[in-house]
């Protein structure tokens, strides 16, 4: 990490280590105050001595009210953001398709070689693939695997990366150094090699792919979380908690974590987009999903040989894949803009 002897705030906070891609934590001063108040409001209740029940209840109510106001403010802002809403609608469309497409479309697995590679027509809106299966049905059904794999893999990555980042960022020192070196090693290895090795180790199946992608993204997430934690640990409320003698785990989870949810959420949505992309690429390279899964990545990798004579077999799943990841990115963008207003 760059050792720049600079005590003036750079665009990325007091610690020049913070040059990751995550959006800056709460540049909005009003937001910082709201959060700090909410946090300190809670803490007053646990000061020893004096039965300040009445004041305590009032302080508690005030703090909760602050939090509520903060949340409503955020949600309203999000609903007003066009990028966020467009992204959300697209994602919800695919969620709907993932759940219900098989009830409304033709069968995605029924083969009919006599009409294979047929162009789009009223009978088959998106045409048919090389085995005569309806491309529309397969494209709609293909959302299912992606929407299962990507979010779960992202949650895993956030969980594991979050834990590692919290530990490294909070404790600094030798723990941090060791963890960061290991992370560096993992990041230095090409992703393709790590994927091959992880998947060969773990086997096949949807669950395995989720675990593998989660593991692949853990190092990057941990770097982001660590950076955010470093930014937070010098703040007063953290100092206060440590002076009070709180245990480290307590400080990390109850104090710091709630205040870094924004960059984590943003990082999560970024990772979600990459998870979709990575799942598709792994399918393309032959690792993971089994036929007759209509998964988009798998479909594209199998049907791409027909691109010249039957482009619909590739272009529709590709467009679907693109639309989902764009939608997720729009959500990220909307969140980022809202959080930094």
């Amino acid at each position, binding site marked *: 990490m760059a050792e720049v002897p600079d005590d003036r705030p750079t665009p990325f906070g007091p610690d020049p280590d913070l040059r990751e891609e995550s959006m800056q934590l709460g540049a909005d001063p009003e937001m910082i105050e709201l959060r700090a108040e909410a946090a300190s409001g809670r803490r007053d209740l646990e000061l020893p001595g004096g039965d300040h029940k009445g004041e305590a209840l009032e302080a508690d109510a005030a703090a909760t009210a602050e939090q509520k106001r903060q949340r409503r403010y955020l949600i309203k802002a999000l609903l007003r953001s066009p*990028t966020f809403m467009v992204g959300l609608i697209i994602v919800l469309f695919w969620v709907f398709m993932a759940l219900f497409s098989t009830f409304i479309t033709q069968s995605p697995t029924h083969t009919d070689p006599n009409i294979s590679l047929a162009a789009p027509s009223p009978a088959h809106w998106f045409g048919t693939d090389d085995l005569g299966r309806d491309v529309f049905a397969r494209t709609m059904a293909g959302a299912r695997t992606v929407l299962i794999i990507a979010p779960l893999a992202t949650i895993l990555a956030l969980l594991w990366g979050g834990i590692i980042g919290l530990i490294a960022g909070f404790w600094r020192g030798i723990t941090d150094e060791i963890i960061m*070196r290991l992370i560096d090693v993992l990041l*230095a290895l090409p992703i393709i090699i790590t994927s091959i090795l992880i998947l060969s180790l773990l086997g096949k199946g949807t669950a395995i792919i989720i675990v593998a992608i989660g593991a692949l993204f853990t190092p990057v997430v941990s770097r982001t979380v660590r950076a955010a934690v470093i930014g937070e640990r010098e703040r007063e409320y953290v100092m206060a908690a440590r002076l009070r003698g709180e245990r480290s785990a307590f400080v990390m989870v109850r104090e710091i974590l709630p205040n870094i949810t924004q960059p984590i959420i943003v990082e999560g949505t970024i990772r979600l987009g990459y998870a979709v992309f990575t799942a598709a690429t792994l399918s393309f390279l032959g690792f993971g999903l089994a036929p007759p899964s209509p998964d988009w990545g798998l479909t594209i990798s199998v049907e791409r040989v027909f691109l010249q004579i039957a482009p619909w077999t590739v272009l529709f799943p590709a467009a679907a894949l693109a639309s989902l990841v764009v939608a997720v990115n729009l959500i990220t963008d909307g969140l980022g803009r809202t959080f930094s207003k």
Partner: protein
Amino acid sequence: MLRLIGRRLLLMVPTLILASLLIFALAEVLPGNVGRSILGQYATPQDVAALNHKLGADRPLVVRYATWAGNFVTGDWGESPVLKVPVRPYVMAALWNSLILAGFALILIVPTSIVLGVFSGLRRDSALDRVITVSTLSMTVIPEFVSGVVLLYVFAVWLKWLPVTALAPEGAPIYERLYYLILPAIPLMFLELGYIARMARVGTVQVLAMPYIRTAVLKGVPRSRVVFGHVLRNAMVPTVTVIGSQVGWLIGGLVVVETLFSYPGIGKVMVESALNHDVPVLEASVLMVAVVYMFANLVADIVVALLNPRIRKGG
């Protein structure tokens, strides 16, 4: 500065050692073995065992690693048991090819994405900003195997404007080599444009919010001077960092593009050697890619550090 460089170079050594150990250990768990990869599924188990013994592949893991490591650090990278060629020229040639492709792609990507990013940052929340952000983000998510195939078909087969492969004939002059690299560089552009442009945008936005920028504008400093003098340099900080980390990815992550365009790069070498249990080639190629990745990050950090004092003095 020198301390920074020295520390980082020193840190590379344990990182590489750890990486090589990891690869060796994990290569053990891949299905199959090198003898079977060479002889195929029709060979008798005795033939396979005999070949494995001849290649020393049946020695204990520790012995194999120690032998390999000992030779590697003295410059003897050995011979590929599968291809029967010396490892170093084979790996370095592939690495060089990938570096050229990645370098060319970066030459196309970096100025474009910086310009786009700074522009959208300067006109934050305008229609132009929205369009640039959304479209570049959309392009990042198109997998290379989709964009590559479509581009190949449209530009190389249908329009015949560009060649179908990425490798120019031997002895071709540099501009001809680059001509062949245009098509494979485009999917890479799609992937990176959005990412780097966004970082440039973020940097721009943050700098514009700085008080001293507002002061300069209020004092009457011409806008263009503000932009070129301060914004650009500050926007470079996150941008250069991201470029550094992407170089490593570009070098090692190009398997798909290399396959589609029949380009003999390091990505294919790594994947094939992994699947064939060709351990000397696998180790050499992965370690080389790791070295490139770490050097790229180091260079990026040096550039960032060089940029910073000017930020400090700036105004």
